[in-house]
């Protein structure tokens, strides 16, 4: 973990309110696993006050750059979307545990399910799984066609299904519907998205090896403030920012 003023290399809009930001700096050298995140400070001294947690979507260790993909909606992410090449941005990271693609057995098939802005971290994960010899199937859920991004990028790595809530792009429905309707077969599951989606995944595929990445409002992002806790089945608790954001299914109770 490190705090660095990173430099904007590229900022581009991918879809309605969805931006892709490439940052460079030595902090990238510490990024080890897909599914880790960074904590980003935008604006001046106190507006907005808190950092914003954003997943690492792609790591380029040769160029010391990484990419994040985010939805510009609130104050912090809107400011982020105003950054231009050459600007500096205050990044704390990498944070959290992340996924472990090397723990999968080569030759098996992994299902990667993402909902909305849960999709980005799956990209680096998918690349690493593929490198490791694991077959990947992607099921990406969005609200509607205007929000869809990275369809081609994921399709280049493996079988890819897109679902939209209103059916305006790909198949109509939620990711769980698409998985069932297409009778997808897989050994392990990696899911990132809103808690309702994660819960649905847990309930729909109770027998699969499954890893889920959770979101929660954060204060510190480093384990000190107890803002981001969730309960475990045994009545204890985990901090999403340090013990997560990735948990094996059943390890924590998904709040929703």
């Amino acid at each position: 973990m490190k705090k660095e003023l990173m430099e904007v290399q590229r900022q581009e809009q991918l879809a309605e309110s969805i931006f892709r930001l490439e940052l460079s700096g030595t902090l990238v050298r510490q990024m080890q696993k897909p599914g880790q995140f960074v904590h980003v400070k935008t604006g001046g001294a106190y507006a907005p006050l808190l950092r914003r947690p954003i997943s690492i979507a792609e790591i380029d260790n040769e160029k010391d750059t990484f990419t994040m993909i985010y939805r510009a909606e609130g104050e912090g992410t809107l400011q982020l979307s105003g950054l231009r090449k050459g600007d500096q941005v205050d990044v704390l990271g990498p944070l959290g545990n992340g996924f472990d693609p090397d723990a999968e057995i080569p030759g098996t098939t992994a299902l990667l399910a993402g909902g909305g802005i849960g999709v980005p971290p799956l990209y680096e994960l998918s690349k690493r799984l593929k490198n490791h010899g694991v077959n990947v199937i992607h099921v990406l859920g969005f609200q509607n066609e205007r929000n869809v991004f990275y369809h081609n990028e994921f399709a280049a790595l493996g079988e890819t299904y897109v679902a939209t809530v209103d059916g305006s792009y790909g198949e109509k429905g939620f990711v769980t519907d698409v998985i069932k309707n297409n009778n997808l077969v897989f050994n392990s599951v990696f899911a990132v998205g809103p808690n309702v989606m994660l819960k649905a995944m847990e309930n729909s595929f109770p027998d699969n090896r499954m890893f889920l990445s959770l979101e929660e409002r954060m204060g510190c992002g480093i384990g000190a403030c107890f803002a981001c806790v969730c309960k475990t089945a045994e009545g204890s608790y985990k901090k999403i920012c340090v013990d997560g954001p990735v948990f094996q299914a059943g390890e924590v109770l998904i709040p929703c």
Partner: protein
Amino acid sequence: MLNVSLPGLELKNPIIPASGCFGFGKEFAQLYDLSKLGAIMIKATTAEVRFGNPTPRVAETPGGMLNAIGLQNPGLEKVLSEELPRLEQYDVPVIANVAGSAIEDYIEVAEKISSAQNVHALELNISCPNVKTGGIAFGTSAETAGKLTSAVKKVSSVPIYVKLSPNVTNIADIARAVEAAGADGITMINTLLGMRLDLKTGIPVLANKTGGLSGPAVKPVAVRMVYEVSQAVDIPVIGMGGIQSAEDVLEFMYAGASAVAVGTANFVNPYICPEIIEELPHTLKKYGISHITECVGRSWKHEQKPAYSRP
């Protein structure tokens, strides 16, 4: 030029991470040497293990944040057996924040935790706005605050500082009551009670509904209260509320604080405490101050000595 002496505490410098914003120091120890700090105020400790409130527990507000952690902590036993011993490797005094639901809880925790080797002072949390029983209930009545203070004073092996709530009509009254009851110092302010509502659903953003407001937004309220209380009592005040810079430290000390605590700013910049400590000598120099203690109460000492005149 930064050292400060307070009851029970010899501080290298007046910068202390505030309770609840620094856990038990473990995470920050990965970022810098905790021995740099003046002291450490650890997370509130209760007799029993507490999970705290449901999530979401934090929400951002203009220039501030709301929290409703609800005093989550591993409980007295574990703090004594694990957290405090781990802090012994650093050359830094610990101020143990003590909380509970009833007077008996405070007494139990205070008695035991005050005998830990590196605990040099207690901070009596009578101002947590995020728990159903105890907490703020003890801090909004001068009488109750006084009773609790004298009960804890009897059992504590170290000086006690009482942490005041800003959610009161007359904070100086509470301060005088705890001073009379034997408090060795005052820490202030805890958070202001606030709330945010979700625009889509209409319901509170925090699961606990209300939360405690902290950060730069509350600084003017905190400064005013430190100014009032430091003139009303003869025991030292440790000031806090929105401190983000060496300049903010000066402002609190001018108001009457003898040392300060930094809370929310640790989330914005986890290196903030050592950065302020490094910056302070330059800031003092800039304003022509040769030792930090000269700042204490300058805003009101000024009035008492009309020799200095308004430029």
